[in-house]
């Protein structure tokens, strides 16, 4: 790929817009399973997934580590469902 793609094939504007592709695709996969319950209704109150995701985002923002983000999110989710909400 690196050898096939020459710098000037895509203009700057297109490249700039393409750089938004992850930001445009991933939230569409992230949001529904977090904000919707199993019946498909929006569930915001007492939703441990929202809290755990916020914690994961904070850790990800500061650590910039993929693995740390995933594990903080998962561990805080487990804490919420097994300890806090019990």
């Amino acid at each position: 790929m690196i050898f096939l793609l020459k710098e000037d094939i895509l203009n700057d504007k297109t490249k700039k817009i393409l750089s938004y592709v992850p930001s445009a695709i991933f939230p569409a996969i992230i949001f529904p399973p977090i904000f919707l319950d199993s019946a498909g209704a929006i569930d915001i109150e007492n939703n441990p997934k929202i809290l755990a995701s916020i914690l994961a985002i904070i850790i990800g923002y500061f650590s910039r580590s993929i693995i740390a983000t995933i594990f903080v999110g998962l561990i805080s989710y487990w804490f919420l469902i097994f300890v806090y909400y019990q």
Partner: protein
Amino acid sequence: MNDRLKTLSRGIIDVSPLMIPVVPFGIIYGVIGMELGLSAYMTFGMSIIIFGGASQIVLLQLFSGGASSLVTITSVGAVNSRHLLYGAVFSEYLSHLKLAWKIILSYVLIDQAFAVSNTYFKKNKNNTFKHYHLLGAGFTCWTIWQISTILGIVLGSVVPEELGLSFTISLTFVALLINDFRKFKNIIVMLVSGIVATIGYNTIPFQAYIIVAAIAALLVATLLTLITLKKN
């Protein structure tokens, strides 16, 4: 010890500490594969063919959700696009190698191997056998990943569903966006995509909510880009 072996084992030693978080990640991947109803061969085969944790979880999610091949291929490609940059960085050190070497090394060039070999290459530019470092680091990652995938597949039937391991899919995508959280325009694009998908989940037919949300968000991204270009 000859230089080849020395460099190879240096690579193995350098990457080893980075393998600690990879083990639970591989197990989670195997468990999710089983939870989503894929066969053991398919789950393991994906680890052999793709060999990339986050992108494999993305593929599992989209595949089981019935997403179109276009969305699936684009998303897995988007997740793995950072490897193009790794290849570009390493071409400085490895472009003289034979094609077979390049193919093998590109296959094992993942985040952890890139991180340690990049440091090594910078310090040891003149080592004729420096590519053995990447070979050692890369195949260590590969071996650990395959073993932990198998562990996950075996544990898949034992791990209770209450653990909610499928939540790690959402978390993986969140983690892949960490570098974009600092950019205000990206956050706007993310919110548009997420809100359109959440509302469209029940209203847009054929599970097309992902691509509809992505197109809506890209339109907003285009607008934002055009506005900024005009200002400058």
